[in-house]
């Protein structure tokens, strides 16, 4: 199946949903956007990008249409469905809680619990 990603399990889907939420966008642009926004920290393995997109499309979180790009070529543009938006919100919230919790744990001083 998909190659190993540097990203934690499941985060790629969340990131894709977030990028697509900003407006209809094609696969290559998603990869570009992810790399730019994360300032190169998040290296999306392009081999697992498309399987992830297709999976999300099959689950009804994304919809896709063929449209022309600025350069006049036809490309597959992905947009968020209503179901996708709900999913994005819950997952983002979950993610935030997780980071907060992990952050708290990491802030513990070496000496032990206060």
């Amino acid at each position, binding site marked *: 199946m998909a*190659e190993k990603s540097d990203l934690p399990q499941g985060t790629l889907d969340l990131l894709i949903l977030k990028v697509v939420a900003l407006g209809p966008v094609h696969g*290559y642009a998603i*990869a570009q956007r992810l790399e730019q926004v994360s300032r190169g920290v998040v290296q999306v393995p*392009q*081999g697992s990008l*498309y399987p992830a997109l*297709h999976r999300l499309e099959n689950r009804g979180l994304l919809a896709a249409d063929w449209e022309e790009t600025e350069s006049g070529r036809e490309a*597959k543009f992905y947009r968020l469905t209503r179901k996708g938006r709900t999913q994005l919100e819950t997952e983002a919230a979950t993610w935030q809680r997780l980071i907060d919790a992990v952050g708290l744990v990491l802030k513990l001083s070496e000496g032990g619990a206060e």
Partner: protein
Amino acid sequence: MNWWQRLFRRTKMENQLEKELRFHLDQHASDLIAHGLSPDEARRQSRLALGGPEQAKENCRDARGTRWLEDLLRDFRYAIRMLQKQPSFAVVALLTLALGIGATTVMFTLINGVLLKPLPYSDPDKLVSVNGQSDRWNAEIFGEQNVAYLDFLDCARESRSLTIAAALYNGGTVSEPGEPEYVDLREISSGLFSVLRVPIVQGRSFLPEEDRQGAAPVAILGSGFWQRHFAGRTDAVGSSVVLDGKRFTIVGIAPAGFKLFGDEADIYTPVGQDTARYLRNRAAHPMHVVGRLQSGTTLSQAQNELALLGHHLAEQFPDTNAGRTFQVRSLRPNVGNVGSKLWLLLGAVGLVLLVACVNVASLLLARAVSRERELAMRAALGASRGRLVRQCLTESAMLGLAGGLLGVLIAADGIRPFVQVWPGALPRAEEVRVDWHVLLFAFGVSMLSGLLFGLAPALRAPFSNLEQKLRTGARSIAGSSRRLHGIFVISEIALAIILLVSAGMLGRTLLHLSSLDAGVDVRNVLVTRMALSPATLADPAKTRAAWKDVLARARNVPGVQSVATVDTFPMRAGDNEEGYWTSADVPPANKLPFALLTSVSPDYLNVMRIPLRRGRFFDDHDTVESTPVIVIDDVLARNAFGAQDPVGKRLWIPDMGYGGNVFEIVGVVGHVRHWGLAGDDQAKVRAQIYYPFAQLPDGFMHRWSELMSIAVRTEIPPLSALASLRSALKGVAGDQVLYEVRTMEQLASESLAEQRFLSLLFGIFAGLALLLACIGIYGVLAYLTGQRVPEIGVRMALGATARDVIRLVLRQSLGMVFGGIAVGIVTALAAGRLLMHTVDGMQSTEPSTLILTIPVLVLAALLASFGPALRASRVDPVTALRQD
């Protein structure tokens, strides 16, 4: 898109996928070019970033979710194409599997029909049987018993948890309408049909007021009898039959195929009308009792209630019921000891199927190795390891299913003849048919064998060192499969050995048993049950005279040498067992040794040609007035008197009921194998006592005459005397009939039928397994030698002769064969022990059985390996070396 769109718009989706990825690569490349890379380098880098367009596509296809179905269809088509390309492989594999699965399905169909199917009554889970149990009896010999009629009536009245009904086995002569016929009679309580929920097809069931003494005689006809005597006419209900001289009005017809405790009766009458004394005696236990649980009650509640009722009865009637209680069990079909044999045979065909699977596995493996390059190619093109394994498994599952389909066809056709050749009558044979349980079983077995023989080749699907595998020929990587092939051959041989040794053991047992002395001279003896004219049975003096008359008339029939009356025969169902003691202080019944009792007329010894060892046999001077005498066999003489001479000593037989229960021994005769050639040595009761029919008091005449048989020694083939015997013994009223006619030779042969049948089947299975194993050895060796052609070429170039090469190949084959034999013998010994448990008279495994069977196998294996060896020896070293 929903799943079927995804499935059926594949082409469109593939195009779109291609287009999407192409767009990505082009965009990436043009960006890279904009950063100053050369167009070629840019394209290369963009491909690397995507990780190869084909792999990316595969991963996207996987993400679709309907992927497995698409793949399955494609693998299916591919598998069919592969099989079409190699029709001889396909035919061999399919036939092998069809045979194995077919045979297994036949056995399962039998097991399903005979053992697994519920009883053919509605709501069978609620049905129970009620049996009597007594701590005063030797439970090891008698087990559970039936129930006394009065006890049954009490339980039927008192029980709140059960509705119960009872049936009594009996027989009688129907003299009207049609020819006189001895019929199978069931006397039943009025509730029997309703307890079983069996509807009466015409007329009605018995009413409770008909189930009483003095009520008008009524009868229900069995369907078979109705067809025979009334040709299925509807006006039979309301007309009458004359049974044992009494006219019964027919009130109903039982449905066709209705069986009570496994057999179909001719006539049913209400048991309550029977005035026989033993039905009023709580010490006699003739009733078979069935019951239906009231809704809301459980089996254990019913058991507790009946145990309590039994306890009350024991307090109320201590003379007859002390220590007696009742057992309530779920009603099970009565199939005797057929079950263990059926499972044994299923095990045996299972082994044949295993050999078949191993065989196909080794064929597939040989193919898989030669396909290694093709598979490596597919892996390089993006197929994952799981995907390749799945493809291989689809192929073998398809083979398995196709073989299974053929097998089910074989089974559907083969099951009837098989049921018919079953020795004796197979119980519940009418239930044996291919139904959805059987189909499900066959499907499961096919899939399982498909997996079994497909797994090893599939797991060999290459995934590492692709590059090396693509570059080299298939041949140079075959080395590792040699061990696997070796294991296949070893297991085939081992399985074949188990079956061969078992067949050998059964064959030896059969030989041994048929050479045994039955204790009687079975040639030219006719035995038949006989029913006297019902008119003579009422008067004991008339009955005695009638039997004398029968003997005198039979003796005058041309071709008849001597004739005797006898109540129970050797080697036929039916016996009378009583406890005996050698002194007057007789211990309680459960401490007594038991013997088989047979009442005979004086000529019995001559008819059967049983040797007289000591003293005398009976003669016409032994009558009711003279001292009660008996003759014992040498088993009883040895058990009871050791080396002493028993003649003149006395035996106490507490339940004989006449002569003060003390008898003088006047003679000793040879032991007769009453339980058949096979069963007698293991029988619990073997000792025998003969007593003269003429000494029985009047009170016994009626009951004894109902069960009487005659034995006739003839000078001509016994069955050819039958017609003249029938007409000579018809009686004045023409209503005396002979029934259940057999020759002693038939009985002796039938007593070995089971052993003969099993050894025949095991012989066939062993032969099949041997044949399959030989095909397997041939295939494996042909393949392995083919792989070694270059090596053989080198050897020959270095001076090896043809003979050396043959020896090389045969040594390889023999190594595998002897490995298999070693494994096989160990398992065969275990299988032999199982056989000894299941088959009467089974001889233990002896070295001679092994010594006889193993050379057969080695020889067959050598024969199978000779072809490949010979071919190897003709290898031309020059071509062989150039081949690489």
